[in-house]
């Protein structure tokens, strides 16, 4: 996917003014946020569950090599083929080769953020193979000229039913309808034959279970099951960090993930896949391939961002982020939006291409407080800001301002004088209204807000006066 993260500010501003988008985004607070809160309340001691989830993910990461090797051994013993891909290009090459070697013409895709990350659809199309998105949200995006998703769980959260009605009417040539149930039915009828005729199914994997060499996916629509059962080949593609030790460990995580993502106690389908089909089975793929992708994850493991690898892709952070709620996921300009995107995007594609992202947050920590595996998201964002500072990626006005402030704040007498002057100047600017409407160098503030004028004397001088 083309990286447009450096355009964050412009895209965010445009999205703030987009009334239709704002209507779609407005639903997050009343649906996703409320649904999660209800599920958490209904569970009971969700805090202890979060801690348990954190421990399970940390356990896997602490011995990631050993668990990956165990996973591979078990998976291969059960007849799966395990591939390793260092980067996006390699991962695409592997999948395209599997397709080519098996005469694959069509691929039915269940939702996979890693497949977005590596640009799989483009690679398949270039190789003359047709990818068909089957998740309703991803399907809507695909027929809309391959528009990128704006959320990792609800890909078309930015669209209204009217938008989808227009799109289906145009692309399917069917009578226009706005009822979500009717639109869903239409998609079902269009996609059903594709499931039945696809040569290969591609899925992600929410988790890899080392104990049994299995992949696990959580879905609601049934497309995940169809993609991984009907076609003669199944390819599961995911990041190396997804490995989890045991079935019991994944059960704990299954209590956290759906509640955090959609407010469900469990997703409609949970599918555990281990090896290809047996000779006496009537359904199942003849071949089961698992592609383990690095693409920057080992770099995260080695650095200060390691805790980010605990992420189980629930989307709670972006649902609760006031910035995401205001501007929507496309402003982030790549695969991963919101708080997790503030960390993953710079980490995976480079700080230079993502300068605004670690700064596009107030560090309010609404994200960290809902993260099911307790990733300290604001702390990681702050660390990226430190890296930006060290690499000279901060604008010179900001660096100068901070340097000046820091220098003066270490010199109390100078600071006292400077603040006395500033207090009087700003009081003057505020006039009788005691409000400043324009402040030089602060258009970001004063374009939309007044600045309350200060009292005119600093506390320091008033306190001194009082003590005399």
């Amino acid at each position, binding site marked *: 996917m083309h990286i447009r993260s450096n355009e964050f500010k412009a895209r965010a501003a445009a999205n703030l003014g987009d009334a239709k988008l704002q209507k779609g985004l407005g639903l997050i607070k009343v649906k996703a946020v409320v649904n999660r809160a209800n599920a958490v309340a209904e*569970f009971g001691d969700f805090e202890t569950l979060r801690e348990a989830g954190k421990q399970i993910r940390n356990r896997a990461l602490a011995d990631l090599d050993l668990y990956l090797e165990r996973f591979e051994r078990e998976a291969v013993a059960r007849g799966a083929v395990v591939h390793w891909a260092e980067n996006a290009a390699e991962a695409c090459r592997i999948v395209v080769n599997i397709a080519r070697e098996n005469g694959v013409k069509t691929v039915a895709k269940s939702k996979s953020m890693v497949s977005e990350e590596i640009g799989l659809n483009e690679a398949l199309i270039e190789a003359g193979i047709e990818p068909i998105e089957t998740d309703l949200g991803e399907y809507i995006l695909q027929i809309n000229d391959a528009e990128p998703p704006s959320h990792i769980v609800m890909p078309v959260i930015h669209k209204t039913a009217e938008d989808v009605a227009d799109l289906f009417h145009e692309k399917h040539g069917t009578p226009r309808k706005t009822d979500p149930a009717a639109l869903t039915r239409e998609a079902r009828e269009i996609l059903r034959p594709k499931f039945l005729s696809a040569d290969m199914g591609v899925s992600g994997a929410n988790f890899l279970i080392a104990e049994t060499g299995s992949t696990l996916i959580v879905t609601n629509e049934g497309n995940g099951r169809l993609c991984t059962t009907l076609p003669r080949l199944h390819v599961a593609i995911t990041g190396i960090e997804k490995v989890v030790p045991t079935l019991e460990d994944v059960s704990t995580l299954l209590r956290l993930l759906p509640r955090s993502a959609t407010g469900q106690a469990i997703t409609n389908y949970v599918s555990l896949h281990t090896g290809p089909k047996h000779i006496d089975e009537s359904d199942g793929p003849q071949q089961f391939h698992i592609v383990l992708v690095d693409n920057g994850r080992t770099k995260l493991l080695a650095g200060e961002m390691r805790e980010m690898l605990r992420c189980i892709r629930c989307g709670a952070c972006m649902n609760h982020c006031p910035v995401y709620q205001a501007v929507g996921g496309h402003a982030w300009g790549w695969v991963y939006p919101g708080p997790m995107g503030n960390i993953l995007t710079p980490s995976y594609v480079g700080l230079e291409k993502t300068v605004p992202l670690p700064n596009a947050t107030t560090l309010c920590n609404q994200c960290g407080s809902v993260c099911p595996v307790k990733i300290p998201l604001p702390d990681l964002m702050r660390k990226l800001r430190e890296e930006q500072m060290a690499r000279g990626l901060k604008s010179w006005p900001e660096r100068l301002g901070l340097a000046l402030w820091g220098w003066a704040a270490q010199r109390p007498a100078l600071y006292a004088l400077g603040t006395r002057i500033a207090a009087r100047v700003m009081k003057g600017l505020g006039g009788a209204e005691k409000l400043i409407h324009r402040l030089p160098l602060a258009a970001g503030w004063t374009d939309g807000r007044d600045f309350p004028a200060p009292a005119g004397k600093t506390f320091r001088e008033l306190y001194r006066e009082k003590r005399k």
Partner: protein
Amino acid sequence: MSARENILGRVRNALNRKASPADTAHIDAHIAAHPVGMQPPRDWEPELRFRARAEALASTVEKVSSLQAVPDAVARYLVVNKLPTSGVCWPGLRHLDWIGAGLGMEDRPARGADLVGITGCYCAVAETGTLVFLSGPDTPAATSLLPETHIAIVDTARIVPFMEDAWALVRAERGRPPRAVNFVSGPSRTADIEQTVTMGAHGPYRVHIILVG
């Protein structure tokens, strides 16, 4: 150096570990012990809990006293809901008196045009109101997935309290999971459009559960 070696090498460096062979005793022990993690409090009776959760997730549930009573129960359900009275069933259910109940059920895996699929299940999880299916020659997956109406027959003796109990059952009875284990918790659904939940996405529109016990 293969991609595999490069990736594992970088992981080992990140973890400050020397090259393999590493001592895997601690991970082997954890996997062998597979301790159960945090579960919600069990302040319910499994059958009642299963039923309550399944209904909350939009399945319909009824109970009969024996397997013999199932065909009539199925017939009642299909007729009342104005659904087709023919479909497919699992091989293990072939011997039930479908014809006597006025139904035409074929013992074969479901195909695209089949509208009613009748299955048993491996077990059911009370915690979440979930049906558990194991793949195999006698349990074709398509039957619970392709038809618009899925009817599942659940032996109440196979209702277990928690998800972990289902795994334990699989280990005890089969040794290891088969190719596919599917947890099914109601009709297929999506909330992709305006976060409005609608039933009947790509899988069944409705799930009817008949408890036997």
